[in-house]
């Protein structure tokens, strides 16, 4: 592989990992809201979460651009107040991947939270745990399978996402050129198939390792729990 390709691999790993880890807390919070609370606008929130799935990735990328771009309201606000800049940065790629993976993350966690027996949560309450502690010590550990599944889906999606990423932060080698962007470029060149194939295998290998790791983790948790 060429140095450019190695760079793309490293960048993709960074982007996918960041996207997954950074969206986890938000994913957990929103999944919990959707699973356990009834509130005005719940349907809207649900639709919003699913939007990146429903919209063609290019459109999502476009929406990200007009929201988090340098001249866009939110983007400018974040840049001015927190120094967080997305445009043409790998952070923007991570944001795009995180957003694209978000519906998958939230669904998996939500399903798992809905499967947690609320009677156990009440039991924890009677033992003195306040709602936050109940979440941390009972709900969260019990919905770990969903968290793991959601994280791996988000990671895998990040390894494959390019439509929104390239539209939002374009394709700058070493900065925003992730593996899928590079693969895509190869597919657009007559005779580029071999290169695309090689990089595709790399991408599959990475994701397979991540998958196996997640399965092992889930199994260890599962063996310890079983149904009690």
């Amino acid at each position: 592989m060429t140095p450019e390709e190695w760079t793309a691999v490293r960048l993709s790993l960074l982007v996918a990992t960041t996207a997954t880890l950074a969206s986890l807390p938000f994913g957990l919070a929103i999944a919990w809201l959707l699973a356990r609370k009834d509130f005005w606008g719940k349907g809207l929130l649900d639709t919003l979460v699913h939007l990146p799935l429903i919209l063609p990735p290019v459109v999502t990328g476009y929406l990200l651009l007009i929201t988090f771009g340098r001249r866009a309201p939110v983007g400018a606000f974040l840049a001015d107040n927190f120094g967080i800049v997305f445009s043409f940065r790998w952070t923007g790629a991570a944001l795009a991947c995180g957003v694209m993976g978000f519906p998958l993350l939230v669904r998996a966690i939500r399903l798992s939270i809905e499967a947690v027996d609320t009677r156990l949560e009440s039991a924890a309450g009677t033992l003195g745990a306040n709602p936050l502690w109940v979440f941390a010590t009972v709900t969260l550990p019990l919905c770990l399978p969903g968290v793991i599944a959601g994280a791996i889906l988000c990671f895998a999606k990040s390894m494959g996402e390019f439509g929104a990423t390239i539209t939002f932060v374009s394709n700058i080698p070493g900065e925003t050129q992730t593996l899928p962007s590079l693969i895509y470029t190869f597919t657009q060149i007559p005779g580029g198939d071999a290169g695309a194939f090689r990089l595709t295998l790399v991408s599959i290998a990475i994701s397979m390792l991540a998958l196996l790791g997640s399965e092992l983790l889930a199994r260890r948790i599962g063996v310890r729990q079983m149904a009690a």
Partner: protein
Amino acid sequence: MSLEIDVDHTRGSFRISARFSAAPGLTALFGRSGSGKSTLVDIVGGLVKPDRGRVAIDGQVLVDTERNVFVPKHLRRIGYVFQDSRLFPHLSVRRNLLYGRWFNRQVGAASADLASVVDLLGIGHLLERQPASLSGGERQRVAIGRALLAHPQVLLMDEPLASLDEARRAEILPYIERLRDEAGLPILYVSHSVAEVARLATTVVILTEGKVTAVGPVADILSQADSGDGGSVLDAQVARHDEPFQLTVLTSRAGELQVPRLNAPVGASVRAYIRGRDVMLSLKPPEEISALNVLAGRVVAVVPDKNGGQAEVRLDCNGDALAARLTAKSVQRLGLAPGLPVYAVIKSVSFERS
């Protein structure tokens, strides 16, 4: 525990409407399956918010719908043993037991507690196991331990001993008695076992289809219980121990009682529960018979059962009330009628061992 309850609540088509207050000590909830016992315990525990009403323990108001008071369950400092054990499946037995410690650590000697509770419940060999691999009884014992170790100010126990063998029950019962008496812990206790209730309860509350149909001191209520096993409770003091025969001699107003060796010091007040079916009546003092306890008394009333085959004969033994359950035939044969002097014969082994 000086528990005051006055609540209405509807669950589906079931309506509970309960109002009573109970003296400090252990309050037993008694009633048939589906009569609303667990619902009531849930209301006290804060798991169910009643539609209307008020709950107070030792004067502390937990719920008052009128004044919009509802203390959340994690602030009630309760130890709740659920009818279904509700162990945390992701935590080992040890961590299940110690779960409450994270939140109520003001009491110091918690690690000593763990050892003694583990010992009492015989779950030492299970500490590193996961709940999923426990047997039904083991699970329930861990659940009891978990509630006890939360250092509760109130104990709620919903059929805690139902899945345990008699030997294990016999070990746990005295411990609950100690909690009630020494630690002065208010306890709300659901059980289908008259023997358990008789032994433990200060106050008995009988629920029937969501309504309180009787409430009062254990002695008054148990004989009314629709349980086929009415009985009497005598207040007594430990007079002495008869070590060679492993007996304890109690004195009560009704007379002297010899019971299996109690683990209580001389002078201590104890309560003797005598099942109606364990009492024989004789017109003259029996001789050369194995029963050690003979109490003289006078028939106060003969209350035939609904179906007529049996009757409860109520006696006054020097001021103490005693009930005997006899066949209608014996009642006729002996000519039992109010005013007749009789002798109640009770075997020592009839008394529950402790």
